[in-house]
């Protein structure tokens, strides 16, 4: 086949089929992440700060059925302390919780945010594994956007609860397909602690300072080294200094988490690395649109009291995925 014919075919293919793809996509994406910069910024902040609460909420339910343990790891500052009755309705002896889907919606008339969560609880009853499927809706007050208060839960409703007997992973049926996944990844308290930390970090670098306590962040935020690689721009400095430097391009906008991985766990030195891929969308100080695909590695040390101290952050800006042909080589 001649090269020109091939290119013509490619161009034709794109021109014919792209219009079919784009409307579907825009509909989906617009719902998930608004395109207007102001909305996008608010969406990122809302999602990240609410996710901190949600991660704490579920993570603290995973216990050895010691009521005080479950309650002590639950951050009531984030949620208000009136939810103990509701929380007591969850199963006991939860070993893992899988969040199977979630959706953040802004309520009309500036009336707060609604976060829908579908989840799967794996717990044991008399040494037998059981699965409970839950569909819950959390409604948050809107005041946290003023950066004065942490997100507070206004109402919680349980839309659906279904218990599946014999959720033994050996006999998993189609409804427990995620249970199989749980064999290779532990959706345990650590899983949620890492995510609670990560969402608080994302909110922090977007300018939300109220979540510092969630990150044990009073000391290490001034001590950790932050290394930044943005194209030909390389700098290493304290976190506050690098954040100022970043804002010379990433001025107004928000970070969204695209992937999270834990690597380089070293039990001897009690360290591990949180490996993140983030997407940033917003505007430059001159008001020009900017998008970034960011790789961050956060090295964490677990102290003897089990609190976390961040030692270093490395950040590299990758090629944002903006077109299907960008990875092609000839």
């Amino acid at each position: 086949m001649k090269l020109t014919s091939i290119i013509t075919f490619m161009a034709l293919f794109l021109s014919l089929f792209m219009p079919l793809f784009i409307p579907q996509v825009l509909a989906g994406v617009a719902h998930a992440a608004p395109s207007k910069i102001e909305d996008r910024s608010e969406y990122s902040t809302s999602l990240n700060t609410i996710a901190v609460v949600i991660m704490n909420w579920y993570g603290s339910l995973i216990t050895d059925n010691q009521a005080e343990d479950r309650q002590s790891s639950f951050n009531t500052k984030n949620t208000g302390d009136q939810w103990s009755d509701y929380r007591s309705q969850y199963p006991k002896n939860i070993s893992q919780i899988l969040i199977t889907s979630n959706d953040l919606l802004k309520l009309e008339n500036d009336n707060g945010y609604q976060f829908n969560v579908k989840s799967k609880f794996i717990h044991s009853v008399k040494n037998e594994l059981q699965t409970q499927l839950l569909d819950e809706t959390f409604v948050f007050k809107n005041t946290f956007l003023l950066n004065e208060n942490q997100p507070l839960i206004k109402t919680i409703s349980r839309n659906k609860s279904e218990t599946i007997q014999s959720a033994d992973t050996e006999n998993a049926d189609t409804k427990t397909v995620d249970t199989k996944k749980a064999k290779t990844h532990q959706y345990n308290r650590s899983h949620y602690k890492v995510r609670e930390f990560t969402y608080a970090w994302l909110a922090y670098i977007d300018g939300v300072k109220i979540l510092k306590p969630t990150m044990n962040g009073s000391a290490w935020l001034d001590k950790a080294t932050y290394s930044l690689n943005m194209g030909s721009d390389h700098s290493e400095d304290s976190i506050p200094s690098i954040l100022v430097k970043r804002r010379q391009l990433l001025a107004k906008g928000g970070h969204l988490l695209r992937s999270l991985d834990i690597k380089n766990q070293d039990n001897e030195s009690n360290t591990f690395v949180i490996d993140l891929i983030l997407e940033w969308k917003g505007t430059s100080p001159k008001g020009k649109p900017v998008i970034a695909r960011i790789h961050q590695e956060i090295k964490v040390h677990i102290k003897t009291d089990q609190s976390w101290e961040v030692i270093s952050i490395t950040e590299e800006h990758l090629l944002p995925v903006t077109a299907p042909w960008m990875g092609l080589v000839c």
Partner: protein
Amino acid sequence: MLKIIKNLVMALMIFGPSQISLANQMSLPILSGVGGDFTAVDSDGNNVTFADYKGKTVVLAFGYTNCADICPFTLGYLKKLYSNLSKEEQEQSRFIFVTIDPDYDTPEHLKAFVQFFNKDFIGLSGSNEQIKHITSLYKAEYSDLSEGKVATKEIRRTTPQKTSDTNEKASLFSHTVVLYLIDKEGYTRSLEYTGTPRDDFAHKIRMLINE
């Protein structure tokens, strides 16, 4: 080449739709961390920095003169794209071709190659380290395909290098096919390719010229 089409179709099916919308929702966003300042050697053998082109809208491509298919095709496409621009717009823009084979592509030979398509086109070369640095800035990929070098007389070439060596050999490379559209401040604003309708591409160049 069939692999390219396969990859293209796969890319569209898998992640094209959701990601394409990212760029489409905004007009020519700055792609943070893509590109930046670098040093290189121009077609006349002079040391240049990319900052020298500040104030101009740049279209930048990677390739090499022994490339038998996509590079001549790309430069042919850029030739037509350039002719879509008015004289004033041409003066406000620079079309730059960076070689990924600096061992073979001397500044003089590179000049002959790019100017075969248009006398205004700029060829940039440099040391292997410089080229590696430039490609890393633009997250561009390239790799040497030939285990041993290939006799250049076996390669279909636009502008063969003048040499009396009948056994001359060169490497063959695979490399990125992306065309980088860069604004007057040096920020990469769009990633295009030869499938982009030329009128659309020219429109984007005009948008950046008029910013």
